[in-house]
């Protein structure tokens, strides 16, 4: 079975094995559907999205089911990645150097492993948001089942569900920006699975060291 860090021909290295890529896109497509229909329920100015996706009733019926799919994908992501997402000492350094990261001065950043501190934050914020969204989402799915004396559950749910959703939207926007626009090669890595060794060395130097150290074939450079 191919694993992350496996060196491929033509100076490339496997970053995301098939199982990780598949799960990423399960989460991604379900999230995008949830985002669009969620925005429709969020504001009258976005309600046309619900009409475009089959109507308000359809969106209301399907949104919770896709929410379950998203939650399962996030839990699978947890089982795949959680050990690698633990915070390290150099992650604190990374946050202190955030200004350099924003200004594209990556050479001034402390060396990141397979995931940098920002990616770890993205992961954990999606993980905890998904739990909040599931718990509040179940209440919003069946509001008529909540007895009157437990109505505070509904009040918490109508407020926390959008709060958690907004947290994911902030992360989602940064995630899309970083992967599609800011870091060339990142988007391809989650489609085809591989990145160049230069990419690994530039953005994930510690991971690069592991790859090179753990491989018999020396990388071209």
């Amino acid at each position, binding site marked *: 079975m191919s694993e992350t860090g496996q060196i491929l021909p*033509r*100076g*490339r290295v496997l970053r995301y094995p098939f199982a990780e890529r598949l799960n990423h896109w399960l989460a991604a497509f379900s999230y995008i559907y949830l985002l669009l229909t969620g925005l*429709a*329920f*969020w*504001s*009258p*100015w976005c*309600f046309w999205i*619900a009409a475009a996706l089959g*109507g*308000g*009733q359809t*969106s*209301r*019926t399907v949104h919770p089911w896709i929410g379950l799919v998203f939650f399962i994908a996030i839990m699978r992501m947890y089982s795949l990645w959680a050990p690698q997402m633990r915070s390290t000492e150099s992650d604190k350094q990374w946050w202190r150097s955030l200004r350099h990261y*924003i*200004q*594209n001065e*990556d050479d001034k950043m402390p060396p990141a492993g397979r995931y940098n501190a920002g990616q770890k934050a993205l992961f954990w914020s999606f993980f905890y948001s998904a739990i909040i969204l599931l718990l509040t989402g179940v209440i*919003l799915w069946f*509001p*008529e089942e909540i007895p*009157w004396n437990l*109505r505070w559950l*509904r*009040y*918490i*749910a*109508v*407020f926390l569900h*959008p*709060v958690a959703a*907004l947290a994911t*939207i*902030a992360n989602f*926007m*940064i995630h899309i*920006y970083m992967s599609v*626009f*800011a*870091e*060339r*090669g990142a988007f*391809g890595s989650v489609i*085809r699975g591989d990145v*160049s060794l*230069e*990419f690994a060395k*530039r*953005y994930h130097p510690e991971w690069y060291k592991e790859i090179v150290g753990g491989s018999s074939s020396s990388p071209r450079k």
Partner: protein
Amino acid sequence: MSQATLRVQKISGHAGSVPGEDTQRQYTVAKLVDTTTCIGCKACEVACVEWNDMPFSPTTFDNTYQTMPETRWNYWNLITFNEHEKEDGSLMWLMRKNQCMHCAEPGCLAACPSDGAIVQYTNGIVDFQQDKCIGCGYCISGCPFNIPKFNKETKRVYKCTLCTDRVSEGLEPACIKACPTGCLHFGSKEDMLVLANQRATQLKDNYNFPNAGVYDPQGVGGTGVIYVLHDATQPELYGGLPSNPTIPLMVKLWKGPLKWLGNLAMVGGVIGLFVHYLRFGPKDRDDAPQEGAQP
């Protein structure tokens, strides 16, 4: 229903101005329920079910004079019954006709995300348009009176319409028509308030109810159903009528500050990221083109 004669004042989930909004003013209408002369005969309950052509709904007997624990999607009007023991040991039977209160500031309408699913007419009637209802149940959370009820088969929410179809034709609601004791009245809100206050004064002066008063809660901007109570200081005694109902705080926060902060953050985020790209560009722009970067 009958939008030809009832003019729209507010509709739910609508972006921009509301067509026909406030083109014509009408009297704000109100039901007056005098709990002190209600005998709990349930004629109004039956009239409601009959007029609105509802299917049979099984009743629940719990050793009181109450038909069922709370209103249902197909049972919009329910006389609540409470046996109240006064300080002197004597008993009072408190009967209150419970239905949609037709709030001036309806929580259901504020919470509803579906364009035009909840309408408030200029005469004050708040009505659900089931063809536009998406069944999300946000109205259930917006209502401080536990009124909107979900039908699992149609996946829509229902409640008292204040007989819009009758009122728009100049008739009183069915429940009012059926009342045999005259404890129910219908007319302009102004007139009903005068009548209610007269009755409350009468109860104070002549019937030894020093706390008698009128229930027209201002927390929801006043209601289209007002009550005369023997003891207006304790409305909870009457089947849990809230003493100061408001749109729940969390619903207000959600539809108020959270919405604006969220919208600002989302739009600001998109603009911020775009400006970042203009200013700093992609991270590897200084590099020589990566060999075989995108095979």
